């Protein structure tokens, strides 16, 4: 078993991991950035829309352009990058199993940043295993990375930002969107995204859900899922207790159903390392405790991005930067005052990203997470004092 070593190992080369690697490397640390995918950038290359916010958050810049700039900076900084490589496990002492080009290696690093991102949620209904029922993220990968349409006529389940944005991108790619269906009584995503698809003539049914997908015959669509796939879907209205209203069903022709029903942090490695967690529904479930340095309850193990709680690429980049600065400081590459200055700048940008009607809930969730970490630390300190 080959040994691989680095001062800082960053797992996941999405927005959070790229920024963590860049910050740690810029300060002088030896950094190894690992991703299981063949291309770095995470979800950024699938984001063809312009970002929101202020100039310092790259508002008006499209996701893939942000990714290109970030990759250039990382490459020029001298970060070592391993793609198509998998960290398949981690021990509480932070030693890791790494498959590097199909070779099993033992990876050791003084500091580890886990930026593994999130996975798409699934919702079951009759016919949900038919070909043609896919995640909205899968549809986005197909149209922007593989340049193929998942189908000709799509029903989108979920009117959060992912559902709204992917619906618009499917329209741009040449698909028809039959409807967006949202179980909640109101649209969850930004009004500007909803308005774009409404102007394009796509109906958004709030307080409705998909009850069934029909298909599986030879007459299935000839595009995408093909024969045997989805042919039409049944939509039903929900009452105020989220119960289907009998008699309210109607059907829509569609060969594709996209599920945009939320994301969950991909925390397997963090659980495996023995970190403490807190259940925070606004962040997508159980999330690891971390302090203002993004360090978890396992010393030297940092987390950043969606894995700490599902937010946005802009917050992921800032959290990654914080983790990178903190790891470099802990290794002695940054003085306390230099690190404090950098961290204060990043923290100020993070706070401004967690403001407003959509940011307040995330800010409250993050404060809860940090408070749980503080409680854990004071308990540990008491135990140590006895």
């Amino acid at each position: 078993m080959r040994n691989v070593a680095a001062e800082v190992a960053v797992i996941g080369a999405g927005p959070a991991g790229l920024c963590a690697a860049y910050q740690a490397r810029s300060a002088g640390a030896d950094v190894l950035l690992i991703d299981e995918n063949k291309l770095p950038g995470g979800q950024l290359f699938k984001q063809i829309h312009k970002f929101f916010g202020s100039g310092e958050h790259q508002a008006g810049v499209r996701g893939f352009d942000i990714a290109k700039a970030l990759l250039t900076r990382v490459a020029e900084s001298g970060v070592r990058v391993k793609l198509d490589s998998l960290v398949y496990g981690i021990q509480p002492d932070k030693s890791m199993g790494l498959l590097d080009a199909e070779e099993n290696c033992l990876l050791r690093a003084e500091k580890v940043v886990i930026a593994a991102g999130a996975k798409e949620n699934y919702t079951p209904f009759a016919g949900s295993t038919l070909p043609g029922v896919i995640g909205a993220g899968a549809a986005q990968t197909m149209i922007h990375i593989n340049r193929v349409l998942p189908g000709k006529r799509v029903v989108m389940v979920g009117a959060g930002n992912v559902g709204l944005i992917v619906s618009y991108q499917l329209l741009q790619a040449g698909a028809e969107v039959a409807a967006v269906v949202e179980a909640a009584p109101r649209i969850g995503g930004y009004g500007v995204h909803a308005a774009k698809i409404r102007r394009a003539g796509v109906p958004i049914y709030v307080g409705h859900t998909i009850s069934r997908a029909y298909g599986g015959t030879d007459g299935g669509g000839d595009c995408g899922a093909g024969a045997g796939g989805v042919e039409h879907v049944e939509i039903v209205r929900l009452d105020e207790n989220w119960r289907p209203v009998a008699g309210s069903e109607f059907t829509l022709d569609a060969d594709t159903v996209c599920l945009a029903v939320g994301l969950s942090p991909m925390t397997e490695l963090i659980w495996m390392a023995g970190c403490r967690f807190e259940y925070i529904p606004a962040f997508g479930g159980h999330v690891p405790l971390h302090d203002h340095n993004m360090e978890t309850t396992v010393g030297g193990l940092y987390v950043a991005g969606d894995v700490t709680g599902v937010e946005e690429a802009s917050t992921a980049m800032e959290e990654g930067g914080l983790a990178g600065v903190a790891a470099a400081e802990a290794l002695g590459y940054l003085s306390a005052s230099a690190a404090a200055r950098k961290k204060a700048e990043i923290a100020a940008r993070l706070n401004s990203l967690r403001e407003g009607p959509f940011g307040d809930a995330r800010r409250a969730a993050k404060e809860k997470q940090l408070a749980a970490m503080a409680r854990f630390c004071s308990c540990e300190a008491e135990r140590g004092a006895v």
Partner: protein
Amino acid sequence: MTEILICRCQEITREDIRRAVEDGATTVDGVKRRTRACMGLCQGKTCERLVQGIIAELTGKSRAEILPQKSRMPVRPVKIGLLGGADDRPV
């Protein structure tokens, strides 16, 4: 097409999970051992969250109490030969 699958990999229905809870399962691991839910190719990445929800609903526990399954290596499907050594080389 009337049966709704919760775990697609192992074809486990909501009724299968209900029976596991009736049999005494109160955790994802308990349901997993009784039904094989979460033991397929995706290792629960699709159904684990749903299984957690069903357990919470049937036992009256809060979602916070229903932890994910015990996390073990490897976190992705990996060829056993790569970990164990496909040839005679010591690993």
